[in-house]
């Protein structure tokens, strides 16, 4: 494990060395799990309604053009 030789103490926040690949994978997986959970939340109706309103306004504004 090449990361074991960091000579400085207390400098971990600014440390540039990448995390070991295995750990990156773990973190990445947790991140995606948490994120997918959010993505899977049902979309509130307000967004569909908003887009319909925007489109209607556009259609009316442009007269006969559709």
């Amino acid at each position: 494990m090449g990361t074991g030789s960091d000579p400085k103490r207390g400098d971990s926040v600014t440390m540039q060395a990448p995390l070991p690949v295995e750990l990156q994978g773990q973190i990445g997986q947790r991140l995606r799990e948490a994120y997918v959970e959010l993505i899977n939340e049902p979309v509130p109706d307000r967004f569909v309604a908003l887009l319909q309103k925007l489109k209607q306004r556009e259609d009316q504004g442009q007269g006969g053009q559709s």
Partner: protein
Amino acid sequence: MTKSDDDLQALLIKAVPNLRAFANSLCGDPTRADDLVQDTLVKAWSNLEGFERGSNLKAWLFTILRNTYFSELRKRRREVEDADGALAERMSVMPEQQVHMDIVDFKKAFGSLSDDQKEVLLLVGAEGFSYEEAAEITNAAVGTVKSRVNRARVALNKALGFEDGENFNSNGEFGSITRAVSRG
């Protein structure tokens, strides 16, 4: 692509779950996140001429959302002088507790990252944008994005308690922690 295009509506709606997830993760406040998404959709709609057909609509929407978020944040910081205090308050959602690698703690750890770090980690790590796309979205150099992602991972790892300031820097310790994490 025109505004009266039904496809466009469908494409925008399709992007909403991702925009909400991104906004929510970024600001940590579901109500504000939905307001951000709404602002993003309205802005996208009224600036549709600025979108190049054939380019990445999702990346374009993400750009609008994060620009909206950060400009609001700057405005707030000007309004509320004690911005750091307010932010800290927002982030300390939960009391200190034992660190386990479960989702709740992960979210808490994630919440402790800086906005810059959250943003790149979400774009690259969660959304799967390339470093180049993330650089374009955040208006930063590719190298900057890469180093932000790297710092974010290190900070997240620390916040998750795999590094307590001692083990990480002591010779040999980190390897054993890593193995413990990845094997169970």
